[in-house]
């Protein structure tokens, strides 16, 4: 057994209240083993304690953490080793890859410096030897022109390349165990696929073990041998991957599997964890049929957006973020917009709302051009077209109570006669999105991500909009919470006849909610068709690649290993 965690408890000191030290127990007695040459996945929602468990192996926790139990690495208890000894293990025997490659690489050092550091420190290599080895490593993680890339800085590389460099740094000393903390979460689906394939291949060639942390069972199913499901700091289930997918024992595991939208099934609603655990079955059926003759509410013609960069003293360089986008959105319908990051999908959404001033084209809202409206007309029109942003932590003003947040738009547009009336509307809308009145006096930081996103939706609804632009609105949420929000969006659409422009990089989610899909690449619309036909018969190579990259969970035998 390479690593054995026995009854690990981690608590955080939260400061004294009336002389009593307050402790928050993040991990409540966790035990599992990582055998040699295998991949163990830790799965759970945010707050389940999975990262804390992994970080306590090398004691990379903040100072206020207290660890208890046993972590045996090749028979040695890591909880009792001294700091210098632990530093000898870090990087050499156990290496880490973190979630966000943009922040885990040091921006002021070249790639070569960062790969050479562990080589010279742990392996006692000379500069020249280390440089040669660094080049080999870059080649191994699949970076083109490794010799030239050695002298580049992190910001000159794309996210996927940065994550490859992180993996190269981790692999530098041929560790026995690689801890990967959500290594693909910050990446696009296509890049995620490449990084997963790389990690699976490297695990085999280097004969190492991997502790893979993720919230996404789809990813985990493709890469791991053993799966440990955690919730609220406890282990709910641990089993080989095939068993987790084919014969899950724990209700929570079953719920996690059920709530993820997939490319193959076609439910009207998604399962929600609480429903599943309570044994409620979701009302099956195709959902409310949509009116095929519904009027077109929003139409874009030749929409363009360019950004200009200064070049030289007087020159300007044009960057076309959105080139010639055309679409029609019917009342009550959803238009999905998919693409990798940098494809211009978010810019397109914000341009519709004139949060970016467009460079050309027309946006017709019931026949009137939004882009040519004067300030007064546009202010009136704002009510009817609203936006929900990606990050629920950033999109609510942290210094406003929820009540203030919800009342403000009504005040601006003069909806409701008095403050009391507006407050009543606000509380009715909160109920609609599944929160109660007690939320009115609270501040955003008191809510979880999913709750905040629902508050953001409620704020839009205060204005009775007809079109909602949802800009990656569920991408930052856990799968289970994502399911709740998606269900809510569907319900609201049925109830109010809202039209959505749903921007996402996740095809599975887009498929669940959209009637029509727009595939964007480098500012161009490469494919546009009805959802079912697009998924059944994608015409473009790019669309096929996006579809192929969606993680599908355990497929019997290792899909990734087979592909690699």
């Amino acid at each position, binding site marked *: 057994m390479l690593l054995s965690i026995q009854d690990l408890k981690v608590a955080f000191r939260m400061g004294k209240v009336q002389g009593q030290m307050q402790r928050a127990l993040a991990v409540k007695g966790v035990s599992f083993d990582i055998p040699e040459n295998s991949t163990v996945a830790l799965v759970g929602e945010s707050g389940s304690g999975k990262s804390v468990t992994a970080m306590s192996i090398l004691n990379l926790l903040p100072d206020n953490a207290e660890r208890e139990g046993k972590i045996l690495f090749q028979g040695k208890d890591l909880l009792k080793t001294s700091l210098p000894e632990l530093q000898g293990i870090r990087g050499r025997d156990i290496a880490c890859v973190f979630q966000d490659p943009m922040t885990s690489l040091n921006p002021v050092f070249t790639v070569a410096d960062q790969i050479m550091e562990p080589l010279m420190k742990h392996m006692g290599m000379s500069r020249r030897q280390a440089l040669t080895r660094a080049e080999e490593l870059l080649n191994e993680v699949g970076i083109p022109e490794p010799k030239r890339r050695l002298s580049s800085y992190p910001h000159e590389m794309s996210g996927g390349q940065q994550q490859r460099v992180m993996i190269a740094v981790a692999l530098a000393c041929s560790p026995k165990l690689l801890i990967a903390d959500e290594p693909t979460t910050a990446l696009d689906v296509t890049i995620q696929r490449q990084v997963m394939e790389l990690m699976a291949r490297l695990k085999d060639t280097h004969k190492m073990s991997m502790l893979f942390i993720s919230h996404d069972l789809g990813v985990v199913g493709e890469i791991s041998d053993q799966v440990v499901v955690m919730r609220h700091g406890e282990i709910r289930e641990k089993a080989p991957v095939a068993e987790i997918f084919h014969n899950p024992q724990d209700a929570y595991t079953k719920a996690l599997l059920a709530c993820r939208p997939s490319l193959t099934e076609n439910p009207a609603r998604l399962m929600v964890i609480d429903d599943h655990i309570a044994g409620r079955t979701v009302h099956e059926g195709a959902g409310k049929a949509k009116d095929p003759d519904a009027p077109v509410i929003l139409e874009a013609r030749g929409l363009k957006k360019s950004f200009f960069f200064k070049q030289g003293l007087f020159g300007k360089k044009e960057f076309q973020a959105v080139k010639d986008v055309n679409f029609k959105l019917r009342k009550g319908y959803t238009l999905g917009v998919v693409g990798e990051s940098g494809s211009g999908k978010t810019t397109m959404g914000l341009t519709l709302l004139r949060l970016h001033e467009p460079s050309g084209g027309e946006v017709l809202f019931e026949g009137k051009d939004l882009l040519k409206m004067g300030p007064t007309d546009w202010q009136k029109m704002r009510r009817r077209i609203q936006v929900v942003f990606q990050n629920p932590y950033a999109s609510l003003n942290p210094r406003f109570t929820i009540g203030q947040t919800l009342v403000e738009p009504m005040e601006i*547009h003069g909806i409701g006669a008095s403050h009391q009336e507006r407050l009543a509307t606000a509380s009715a809308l909160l109920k609609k999105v599944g929160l109660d009145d007690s939320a009115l006096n609270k501040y955003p930081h008191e809510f979880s991500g999913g709750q905040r996103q629902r508050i953001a939706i409620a704020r839009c609804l205060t204005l009775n909009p007809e079109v909602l632009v949802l800009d990656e609105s569920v991408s930052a949420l856990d799968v289970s919470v994502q399911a709740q929000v998606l269900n809510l969006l569907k319900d609201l659409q049925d109830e109010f006849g809202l039209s959505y422009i749903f921007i996402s990089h996740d095809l599975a989610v887009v498929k669940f909610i959209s009637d029509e899909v727009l595939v964007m690449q480098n500012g161009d619309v490469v494919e546009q068709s009805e959802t079912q036909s697009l998924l059944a018969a994608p015409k473009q190579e790019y669309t096929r690649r996006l579809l192929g990259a969606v993680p599908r969970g355990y497929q019997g035998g290792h899909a990734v290993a087979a592909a690699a």
Partner: protein
Amino acid sequence: MSAVLSTPNSAVGSQRSQGVWAASWRRLRTNKLGMFCMAIVAFFLVLVALSGSGLVAKDWQKEVGVPNAQPNFMGPAPAEATGVIAQPKGPNVDLSDIDPLAPKYKEWDERAKAYKTEATVKAETLPFGADRLGRDVLSKAVKGAEVSILVGVLAAVVATLIGTVLGAVSGFFGGKVGDFLEWVYNVFNAIPYILLVFAFAAIFGRGVLSVVLILGLTGWTGIYRLIRAEFMKHSVREYVRSAEAIGASRMSRMFKHILPNVSHVALVQLSLHVVSFIKSEVILSYLGLGVGVDQVSWGTMLSESQSELILGYWWQLVAVTGFMAVFVTAFALFTDALRDALDPKLRGLE
């Protein structure tokens, strides 16, 4: 904030809710040093209020002691050897014959009786000594605290107001407006500070209000830069974008949405500038450009004590530096604690 809290039907969930300010106050209360310094600062502010209303140190201008009276704990100064010129020993010479004023002496004595003369007993020692006119150093220091602290706080408020408004406008709008304000900022920053202060002093003349204006008008540049940077950062944040999407006006976005989120920067800058402006007032008064001659501030006291120190009268210097050091240190440490408490580390509460 109060609008929502005051409505009766929504008071249900108000117990659990903790505002951002309440949370900051709770964090501040756990900082013992910060609370201690806050007590000292509060004590000084009370002192300023009392001396302003004339309850203490009203008679600071009265010559209550002998010139340069020593502090109590040192005891009275030894009597100076005054008998340098020897007393003439011979008999008194009658000068009345040749004294042209002799006939008037009687009349003058009569007239003098109409007035009551009171020979005040000048104290030999005072609690912390006296200056060269025999004024109580302690009352002077208290009165000086009133002027200095008032100048420091008012000037800091003026500077913060200017800096915040200009910084908000420049950071939020950018473009031509931002360029213009940057130009103004650069012009202000290009002139040596003391020279700029002198230029303003030449225009405004002496007096407390002038000092406030001088310091306020020259000291806003640092705050402007910080607030501008914060506004640039926040104006592209999603919460401001969503406020724009619901149709909030520019003013509302700037001052209702962004300002409360950057107010901790302004507040901390305000308190830091109080400290530095107190020191600047001292410099100004020391150079003779500060408060009027009939007023006293820590700066004028320091300037006086320079000449006294040569004669060995050290107490005025010690008194004023003691007052200043305690207040400035306490205020600076309190500011530090305030910054720690106000910085919205709300992530920890999630």
